[in-house]
């Protein structure tokens, strides 16, 4: 249990490493999506370019936005940006840091998709097969065809099973040429991305490192503060609910005692804890009335003063009452995760 709590605390305190994990998973997911996706070039003159470039550019955009959507910090950033100033100044450097950090992580999965697509070659082959240089690659003795016909024939290059232009240009030759260009582009892209990442990482400490450390600290602080606030509210809601329900049952029990004008109950000496836990409800009719009342007339969200903590005691929920003679009091306790 301790281990579980430690892991949870680690992730909580280190939102960045959690986001790094998500980022890695998304990069893997993007390669998986690409290999599962059934690329299907339409092999028609005007559709090829749209389809090829669409597959090359639309999924990375989707993955980029998904990287933002999955990042919890985005609402934190927007909140910090839009909150009224109040008594706490806003620091634009912190906001910029948060945004850059989110954007950098969100760029990884799209970059992986684009690299994989270019290195594979199907997209570029599909998109640019109608632009193959016939003069240098085409067969010398090809029949004279109209421009439109040539376009239609070239558009079928990616679809080997319906290609009928062997006299114009050999399918193998065209596909190799296009794939070679695509892979060259792919490797250049990977090199460019890696160089950029290297430069950003190695040059950043050379510029305003102190300001950077400050922004990073305060952005982590805002994140942790928000989480602690949410936890505290949740703990408070639990304690509030417990006391509210307790007072509801006590109220029911008092009403019943007042309504029955009757003989004093036998209160055996050993009733103690069990009787208290029965909350004064000891028969079917009373229980039914309690349940009906719970639905029909929920208690107001207003705890009675005697129930609120008057001392500064730390009362654990699982402890048995140490003073059975004192009036029953439920205290609300705040648990600190720190």
């Amino acid at each position, binding site marked *: *249990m301790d281990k579980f*709590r430690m892991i*949870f605390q680690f992730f909580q305190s280190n939102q960045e490493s959690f986001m790094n994990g998500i980022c890695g998973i998304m990069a893997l997911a993007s390669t998986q999506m690409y290999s599962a996706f*059934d690329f*299907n*070039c*339409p*092999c*028609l003159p005007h*559709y090829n370019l*749209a*389809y090829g470039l*669409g597959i090359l550019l*639309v*999924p990375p*955009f*989707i993955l980029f*936005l998904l990287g*933002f*959507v999955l990042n919890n910090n*985005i*609402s934190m950033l*927007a*909140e910090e*940006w*839009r*909150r009224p100033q109040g008594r706490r100044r806003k620091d634009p450097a912190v906001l910029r840091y948060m945004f850059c950090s989110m954007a950098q992580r969100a760029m990884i999965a799209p970059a992986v998709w684009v690299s994989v697509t270019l290195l594979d070659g199907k997209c570029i082959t599909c998109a640019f097969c109608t632009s193959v240089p016939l003069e240098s690659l085409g067969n010398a003795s090809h029949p004279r065809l109209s421009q439109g016909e040539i376009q239609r024939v070239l558009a079928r290059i990616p*679809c080997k*099973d*319906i290609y009928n232009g062997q006299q114009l240009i050999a399918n193998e030759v065209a596909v190799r040429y296009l794939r070679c260009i695509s892979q060259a582009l792919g490797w250049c892209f990977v090199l460019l991305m890696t160089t950029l990442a290297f430069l950003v990482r190695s040059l950043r400490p050379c510029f305003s490192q102190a300001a950077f450390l400050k922004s990073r600290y305060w952005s982590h602080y805002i994140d942790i503060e928000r989480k602690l606030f949410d*936890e505290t*509210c*949740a*703990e408070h*809601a*639990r304690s*509030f*609910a*417990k006391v*509210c*329900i307790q007072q509801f*049952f006590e109220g029911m029990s008092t009403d019943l005692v007042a309504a029955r004008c009757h003989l004093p*109950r036998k209160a055996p000496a050993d009733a103690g804890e*069990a009787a208290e*836990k*029965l*909350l004064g*409800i*000891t*028969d*079917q009719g009373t*229980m039914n009335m309690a*349940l009906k009342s*719970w*639905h*029909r*007339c*929920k*208690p107001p969200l207003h705890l009675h003063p005697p129930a609120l903590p008057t001392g500064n005691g730390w009362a654990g929920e*699982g402890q048995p009452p140490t003073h059975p003679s004192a009036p029953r009091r439920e205290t609300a306790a705040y648990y600190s995760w720190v």
Partner: protein
Amino acid sequence: MDRFRMIFQYFQSNSESVMNGICGLLALASVKMYTSFDFSCPCLPQYNMAYGLGIMFVSPIILFLCGLILNRQSLVMLEEWRRPPGCRKKDLAVIRYLCSSIMQRAMVAPVVWIVVTLLDGKCLICAFSGSVDPEKFVGFANVSTEQVQQLLAKVPCKDDELMRNNTSRRAVSRYLRCWSQALGWSILLILIIAAFLARWLRPCFNQATLLQVRHWSNYIDIEQKIFEETCCEHSRLFAHKCILHFFESMQQEIKLHSFSLPGEGEGAEGEEDLLRGITDQDQVNKLLKTWYSEKPPLDVS
């Protein structure tokens, strides 16, 4: 016991992550369902569209309903909506928040199904193969109108004798699949942009109200859980007392009917308490029969 209580407390305070987990599992289940489903287009003119569109739309409805059923918050929301105001005012903003949160989570699996279906393409090819313009495709251009419908309807079936090596069939299939994939990616793009804008812009409007509404909707959920826990605990104790009373009354009856001598020695008292005066087969049988035929009343006062 402590461990369970801590895990329970963790989930209680973090029921959102439980629901996100369920939502993710449903999405994975929908992908798995699609891949294991054996799609089999009828390849007949009137049936194709019904089959294709049916597969594409009926399953998402089922997944949506499953998403609503599996989400605990739907019951909480319905109860909050239908309860009489009584001593506690109803806050419509809380009900709206719960409703939108439930709907968003329930929509994920159906959307995943529709997107996967479109990206795969089989459904659309089956549904719309009869609606393409035959003039665009060489193999179907010079065929009579009645025959062309029959032929186009057979496009999704690769193994049909007429279609086996037909290049025009492949061309039609590619054309429809290209449209299907374009539609799938477009839908995904629109949804992601909507999700991004919603996440980005929400803190700009009424953030304070949102915090309040979110807190009280969590509160209602927690209160319901604690109430159920309290009732469970109460019924345990109630049952315990009820059964104790039953055994005591049986013990008294047995004492009345049998002339048993007082127990010898004090040492046997501890065990006798547990045995509650029921010490032979006939007595046990009588007790069990009475428990079945005459359960004690629900009153331990």
